[in-house]
């Protein structure tokens, strides 16, 4: 499949003591990192909020606050979550991969009000399935 896992630039190892946070990439392109870059450039408030959530994600077994992390309630989207900019619009989709290295893998994103949450969860779920199948 050719998937790569990329570090989130600037996230410290001390902020990833429970889960390593990675972005899924293919041929040097990562929707998650692309979104973070765009938000850092033009939606700084949302960028800060999402980065706060990513830092917390890496240090606790699960984030309880649904204003920060929401699990999909659709049984067809098993194991998919969205990191949320609280009172903002940015959403970064991810899943946990517990089997090998305790990873949180960020896949895609959407912008509340402009994007389609159900589609974003579906794409994350599909990527999760493909990624888990592609592991040796």
């Amino acid at each position, binding site marked *: 499949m050719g998937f790569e896992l990329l570090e989130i630039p*600037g996230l*410290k190892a001390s902020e990833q003591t429970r889960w390593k946070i990675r972005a899924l990439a293919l041929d040097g392109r990562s929707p998650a990192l692309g979104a973070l870059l*765009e938000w850092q450039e033009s939606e700084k408030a949302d960028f800060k909020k999402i980065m706060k959530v990513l830092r917390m994600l890496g240090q606790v077994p699960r984030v309880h606050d649904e204003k920060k992390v929401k699990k999909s309630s659709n049984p067809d989207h098993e194991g998919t979550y969205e990191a949320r900019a609280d009172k903002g619009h940015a959403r970064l989709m991810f899943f946990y991969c517990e089997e090998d290295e305790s990873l949180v893998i960020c896949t895609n994103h959407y912008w509340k009000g402009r994007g389609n949450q159900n589609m974003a969860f579906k794409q994350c779920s599909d990527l999760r399935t493909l990624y888990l199948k592609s592991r040796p």
Partner: protein
Amino acid sequence: MNNKSKDSALPDDLLALFQGARKLTQANLDKLAKATEELDQDPSFRAEYLKGLFVEHIQEAMEQKGISQSELARRWGKSRQYLSRVLSEDRRVNFTIETMVELAGLVGRKIEVHMLNPDENTHVLRCKVTPRRVSPLDRFKDPQSSPAPNVCHPEFQATTRFKGRIDDATRLSA
């Protein structure tokens, strides 16, 4: 799923998702790293992040110990509504050090505060601490060679300070 493209095992919609993403360059990644690291220079960001992390640790401890919000509120001597505001980081709640120490203690945890240089991090190692007792008389004989009483042996320090980054993130042991 949609039809798969001929050149890839990825469905067309997912292939389009990746092909439509920005090509990552080293300059972009460096810019993102710098912006991420600079967040720590914003006191309000850092404070909000630490508060959020504290609340998550409290909720983790509550789950581990089977303590409900009602029970924790009762132990704390506050209303359930007030505790709920604390756990939802309501701006009306004053997050004092006293509040944090009290709550941590009620769920069997403790708070430590470390002042670090910007390039330092702390990493917590859970291990047994063996205090080394020193006879008061020994200290008076040779104060230079005898450490203060009840000082933890350096090999068993519970918190390690280090500079730089760990190449491989380390999970805390249970």
